[in-house]
């Protein structure tokens, strides 16, 4: 297990570098210019050139990248081109929002998806077909559209939950939950359906094995068969899907945080991109990459715990 951990961490270093190069390259392709954005419509060419020099944008691409990279090794991601605040402090203040959103979504997807999928597989019949159809529908609906519909229904029409905004967990747990309900539903819909489909297929497969037949034939209680044998075996493929779902949720936060005006990393990414705030964009890239690496590591660890074949080798 430790070997696996070390191996993964070693692999993640080149990954972070690669992501930063790609982000740097992509950003230079985005039309627009931060100096022009700051100075507005009536900027003079001289003014823009001066601001470029001030921000270091006149230096060649490679040099700017090197400068940023050496900062990264000191834990310094530079300062925002607009606010002048350190990128790390700005991102850290928003990290909690995105992490709570993604973790809640992963939890909801895992629990609701597995429960629905196993119910559909074990129960069969019309009830199962309803679950299957709902799953497919959930897979087809884009999360930003679902988000808008949820706001219209539960925040504007019924006024059950706040339409926008975020309350930190430390401030008020009750309000924290209320502020996250709609975003979590919108964002985890895809996860729930993807996990449900996988859990259903895996359960059907386990249900058709001879060891389940032997257990039934010996009168082992059904709840024991479902919880100790089916769930355990079906969990292996489900965890794999959950890892993919969690990563896709990170990109989903960009849309969902935008709709619900949550002050997280995703909404900052949108804002920084339109502003051409390169240090902030790069910082978000690094944070997201690290989060993906951690998520994958957790999946590998869970997989190792669930599957004795992995543990043995």
């Amino acid at each position, binding site marked *: 297990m430790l070997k696996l951990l070390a191996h993964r961490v070693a692999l993640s270093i080149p990954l972070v570098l690669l992501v930063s190069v790609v982000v740097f390259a992509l950003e230079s392709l985005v039309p627009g210019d931060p100096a022009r954005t700051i100075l507005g419509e009536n900027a003079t060419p001289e003014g823009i050139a001066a601001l470029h020099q001030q921000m270091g944008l006149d230096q060649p691409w490679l040099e700017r990248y090197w400068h940023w990279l050496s900062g990264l090794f000191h834990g310094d991601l530079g300062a925002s081109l607009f606010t002048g605040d350190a990128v790390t402090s700005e991102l850290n203040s928003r990290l909690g929002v995105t992490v709570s959103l993604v973790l809640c979504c992963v939890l909801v997807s895992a629990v609701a998806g597995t429960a629905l999928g196993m119910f559909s597989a074990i129960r069969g019949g019309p009830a199962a077909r309803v679950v299957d159809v709902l799953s497919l529908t959930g897979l087809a609906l884009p999360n930003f559209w679902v988000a808008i519909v949820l706001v219209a229904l539960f925040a504007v029409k019924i006024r059950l939950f706040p339409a926008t905004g975020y309350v930190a967990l430390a401030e008020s747990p009750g309000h924290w939950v209320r502020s996250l309900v709609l975003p979590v539903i919108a964002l985890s819909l895809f996860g729930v359906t993807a996990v449900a489909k996988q859990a259903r297929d895996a359960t059907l497969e386990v249900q058709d094995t001879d060891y389940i037949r032997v*257990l039934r034939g010996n009168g082992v*209680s059904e709840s024991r068969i479902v919880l100790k044998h089916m769930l355990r075996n079906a969990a292996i493929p489900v965890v794999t899907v959950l890892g993919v779902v969690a990563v896709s949720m990170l990109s989903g936060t960009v849309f969902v945080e935008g709709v619900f005006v949550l002050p997280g990393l995703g909404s900052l990414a949108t804002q920084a991109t339109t502003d051409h705030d390169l240090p902030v964009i790069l910082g978000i890239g690094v944070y997201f990459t690290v989060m993906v690496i951690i998520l994958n590591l957790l999946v590998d660890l869970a997989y190792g715990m669930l599957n004795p074949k992995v543990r043995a080798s």
Partner: protein
Amino acid sequence: MKTEPLLQVEGLCVDYPVRRRRRFRAVDSVDLTVAPGETLGVVGESGSGKSTIAKAILGITPVTAGTIRFEGRELDPRRVRRRKPITDIQVVFQDPVSSLDPTKTVGHTIAEPLVAKLRREGGETGDVRRQVAEMLDRVGLPENAASRYPAQFSGGQRQRIAIARAFIVRPRLVVCDEAVSALDLSVQAQILNLLTDVQRDLGVSYLFISHDLSVVEHVSDRVLVLYRGRVMETGSAASVVQSPQHPYTRALLAAAPVHDPLRQRQRRELRASYRIEPKAAAPLGDSCPFAHRCRFAVDRCLQERPVLQPTGADGAVACHRHGELPSDAEDDVPREPRSTATGGSK
């Protein structure tokens, strides 16, 4: 009747639903008995209903008609659903991978049926660990196997684990559904010897299902030959193999390869002589199920369903032309040590 049979199946019919509300009869009016301590071999090709009979006896599949008696009591055909398990009947399946839960240790897998039985009967479960160790020893696995996972064992070892799990509850009857078919030849022999050893020690009966007549002959006292869900021939293992009465049994015997290349070539010619251009399979109504593939078929075979008629000591055959067929042509081929049988009829 010499002794009360342990298992008695009468008129067993099993239908499987197929598309558009039609039904397919997988097992058609099968009678069979298994005496205490006896091994009944069931042979037949794929789709002949062998495994369906096993499932019906185990209560896994719904029975359309017929009765299954175990120790004189009629079994509830829906006993698995109704959670009234008969732990006196256990099973060893063909696939050594799917028959063991990969996430549970071998000790856990073997103990679980016993624990469930003890809980149901209100017994003490303290002794389970010792019984598992004893059973592992009996099936020839090391003691530390209990704490390992199925993935760490070979196919033959997994089959030993499955046998240990079946025997831990001290059953009276064990259904071996192609229990050695997935193993290679040397391992097959080991497992067959293990099964006969355990039978001798614990006095259990086997319903031994296989498509391989030579394996069935090796372990069985009596043999039942199935084709398209019907019994074609029954009898003692020696008489069915050495003097097969039914044309289907003969074809089945001729299909099994032998070691001697010369004999194998002769058998291939023999097999070719049995083969006729198969007509479309007649619907299973009032006809012999084998008629469309039978060299000896006459009009009557297509119009009337043959019933089992006694052949000799304890055998029976379902063939209209029984008694008219030429003796088994294989007797013309010089045979190896195994003594030549008395041949067919006449």
